[in-house]
């Protein structure tokens, strides 16, 4: 099937099998391997991207469902050399260790901060409930998002 969509600001058209998941499309067809597969059944959040501005788990979306949509992946977050404030905050606060869940965490943080620019610690933790991290114990991820919120609001 033919699909056309925008990924990180650029338009793409591809002919794909309907059964191809969006994450598979991003990784295998578009070579955007920054989006990871941790469980493939929407349990872990590693594959989180934004679709028309909303965080979604790209393992549980067929690529054909994203036809006509605007997608942002972790690769599209930085502005050239300049990392996005959320990315900067993760680095500053040691919000990542092995890095595997990180793209999903960052993309989820985009949604958390979009709908709630001044979240409390509890709201951030609640917002991250769909994302597993096995390394950090979440402590520094929460701190990163707190700092990113301050940064984005300043």
């Amino acid at each position, binding site marked *: 099937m033919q699909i056309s969509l925008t990924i990180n600001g650029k338009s793409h058209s591809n002919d794909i099998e*309907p059964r191809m998941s969006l994450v*598979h499309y991003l990784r295998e067809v578009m070579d955007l391997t920054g989006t990871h597969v941790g469980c493939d059944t929407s349990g872990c959040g590693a594959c989180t991207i934004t679709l028309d501005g909303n965080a979604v788990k790209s393992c549980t979306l*067929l690529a054909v469902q994203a036809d006509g949509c605007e997608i942002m992946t972790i690769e599209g977050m930085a502005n050239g050399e300049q990392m996005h404030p959320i990315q900067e905050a993760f680095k500053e606060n040691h919000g990542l260790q092995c890095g595997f869940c990180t793209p999903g965490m960052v993309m989820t943080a985009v*949604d958390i901060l979009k709908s709630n620019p001044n979240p409390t610690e509890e709201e951030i933790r609640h917002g991250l409930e769909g994302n597993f991290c096995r390394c950090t114990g979440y402590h520094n991820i929460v701190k990163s998002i707190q700092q990113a919120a301050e940064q984005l609001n300043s």
Partner: protein
Amino acid sequence: MIPSKFDYIKASSISEAVKLLGKHGYDAKILSGGHSLIPAMKLRLNRPLVLIDISGISGMNTITEQGGEIIIGANCTHSQVLKSDLVKNKLNIVTQTVKCIGDIQVRNRGTIGGSLAHADPSSDYPATILACEAIIEVEGKNGSRTIDAIDFFQGIFTTSLAEDEIITAVRFPKVINGNYQKFFQSASRFAVVGVAVVKDGDSVKVGVTGVSDTPYRAIAVEDAYSGNSDAGSHAIDNIEVMSDHFADVEYRSHLAKVYVKKALEA
């Protein structure tokens, strides 16, 4: 994890979707948000040959107020419902319910219609649908009809939808005094017990999910209620209680009573 092969058809109208469903019968599945269906397909527990995507059909993703009712289109995502001021102000019990569903990402895709049609016995919506006495609007080859909440849930993953019918909307009466209380399963975060209570003076309507393989109206509680919360002890009267690794019959029964009481007192 990759599903078996299927054809994908994007329906542009509900009548087209109904027609396609009639044509393909059991080989077809309706796709809305896909958050119940796609994981099952990836695990190859479900192998439809045709997917009929109804997410693009216009008019099915609006939330409106008509007469005394709030009408939520079947394609409305949980996020959309959660963010709706109309729902928050006039149907707050639904806002409370969707807040408990999944996580941000899941709420951004999962829909009310998909959730109800899937009829997972541990999902959140059924309790609230039952307590609110919502009405489910469906369309099939014989035209449209409505199904009362009490008649909708028939068993585990089973509803009274006919083979060719699709949920188009859910109609809720306005609820002034209602609440949803949930005890989360610690892994899936589905409901071990979910209780919705709608109060109107001395009378009360109680919907329960997670406890039995079919969500139910706790009639015994409603009958016993007259402003006193001891009615919670009737939470599982005449109900066959489910058992799993997280909650056996004894514990789940206890939780059902605790949560009904909690919801009655809230």
